[in-house]
């Protein structure tokens, strides 16, 4: 195995794309930013759009942008992703270069709505709804402040001047460009690792022994009579192997496994319907784990294991398991799962966040409530 943090070499095309995007974007933004002299909207819009096109080209060539025309759900996902991302970035540029702060607030609202669409694509419906509600309030308060505090007619220092337009744009965009360059280097490496851990040509004897062990462990985890089932989870060796094959752990289940703690048992014993529901879920998990174990074993017993098919099968099983424990692609049980995580695993953090909000409220009142300090 190679060194764990060896980076892939930089592709000349990617480097050229990034450099071009940063230079075009810097020039475009510095032309668009408000200032008394030398602001050119038409040329600035053209250069910024060119930078955006080059950036999209970089993302498509580096991370894959081929349209999945044969797979409708994947095609819809791609369409929505590009729609939301491009909208967010366009309105971000509008927010940055807009001299009127009220219009900037409207652009910010659109940025938030688009990122909320991306949150939904990332299987976080609760966070999406919370963000929409919170930032709707934030935008309204911003409007209030704009109406209250800026009553100047015509150009003013704060709205129609920028601090170092060229250097400021260069600093921000060069930062983004370097982050994208790092992503490019790491993405190349990440693909290499998964290929190396499970070579497509042949599985060595010790690999096979380990995978068989993992399959046995998976089956054991599905059997209620064993210790492993009582502990919950799949066991470390099985998970490590599955991580190598699938790219992520299978249904680890741990803190979302409702059979685990005594409190949970008591809580779920309260109503028959809930108990039945939990038992049904546990049975389904058990069945899925057994199916995963069988699939691994069957595939390995063949003379030449079909690795892509095995991977696809295990990925499908993983998706089902994740969906069952509330972490899957669909919003099924996302809210309850987030609530469970918040009030079991992250309880102290929740308390700290509440305290932080209280302290911030007191601080805001102390700062803004002072009377008669006008200089």
């Amino acid at each position: 195995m190679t060194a764990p943090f060896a980076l892939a070499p930089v592709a000349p095309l990617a480097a050229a794309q990034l450099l071009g995007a940063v230079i075009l974007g810097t020039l475009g933004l510095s032309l668009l930013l408000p200032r008394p002299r030398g602001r050119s909207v038409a040329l600035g819009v053209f250069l910024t759009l060119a930078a955006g096109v080059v950036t999209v080209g970089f993302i498509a060539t580096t991370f894959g942008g081929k349209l999945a025309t044969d797979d409708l759900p994947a095609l819809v996902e791609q369409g929505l992703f590009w729609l939301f991302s491009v909208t967010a970035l366009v309105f971000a540029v509008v927010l940055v270069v807009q001299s009127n702060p009220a219009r900037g607030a409207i652009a910010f609202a659109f940025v938030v709505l688009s990122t909320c669409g991306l949150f939904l694509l990332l299987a976080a419906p609760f966070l999406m709804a919370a963000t929409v509600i919170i930032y709707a309030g934030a935008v309204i308060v911003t409007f209030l402040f704009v109406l209250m505090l800026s009553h100047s007619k015509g150009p003013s220092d704060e709205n129609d001047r920028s601090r170092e337009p060229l250097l400021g744009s260069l600093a921000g965009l060069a930062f983004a460009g370097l982050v994208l360059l790092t992503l490019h280097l790491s993405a190349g490496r990440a693909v290499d690792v998964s290929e190396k851990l499970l070579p497509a040509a042949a599985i060595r004897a010790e690999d096979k022994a380990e995978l068989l062990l993992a399959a046995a462990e998976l089956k054991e985890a599905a059997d209620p009579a064993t210790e492993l089932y009582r502990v919950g989870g799949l066991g470390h060796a099985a998970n490590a192997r599955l991580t190598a094959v699938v790219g992520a752990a299978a249904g680890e289940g741990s803190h979302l496994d409702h059979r685990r703690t005594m409190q949970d048992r008591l809580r779920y014993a309260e109503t028959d319907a809930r108990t039945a529901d939990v038992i049904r879920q546990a049975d389904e998990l058990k069945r899925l784990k057994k199916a995963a174990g069988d699939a691994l074993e069957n595939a390995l017993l063949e003379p030449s294991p079909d690795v892509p098919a095995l991977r696809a099968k295990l990925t499908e099983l993983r998706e089902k398991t994740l969906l069952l424990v509330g972490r899957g692609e669909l919003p099924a049980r996302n809210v309850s799962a987030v609530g469970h995580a918040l009030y079991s695993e992250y309880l102290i953090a929740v308390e700290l966040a509440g305290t932080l909000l209280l302290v911030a409220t007191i601080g805001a009142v102390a700062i803004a409530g002072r009377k008669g300090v006008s200089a």
Partner: protein
Amino acid sequence: MITVWHYLAVAAALFGLGLVGFLTRRNFITMFLCAEMMLQGVVLNLLAFGKMHGDLGGQVFGLFVVTVAACEAGLALALFLTLYRRGKTLDSGAWQSIREAKVPASVDTDPLRVVREVPDPMLTPAGRRPARTEDEVRV
């Protein structure tokens, strides 16, 4: 196929644009909105990693980021109000007297564009004033 890298790239671009706005703009309210936009990029990162690992930690962390953003918003707006009371302006350049030592002051050289105020259109007075005085009209 949309991978975690796509989301990371979009988040980085959002963060960079917010940084540009925060560095260059001088209105406190716009600077504040740009900082909020950077936080949106960060939350996007957290959610992408959370989905990659099939774990809820990312979403929980995202919720905490939103909480901290709310605290930040309250304190920032209170500070803007105080600064406005003292300086009667939202211009961050008006407070460069508290800049670091040995840093030269930035001076605005170009004059602002002067916009001539065009008064609202009004109807021209027409007709004649009635001959009778108001006292005569009043009964």
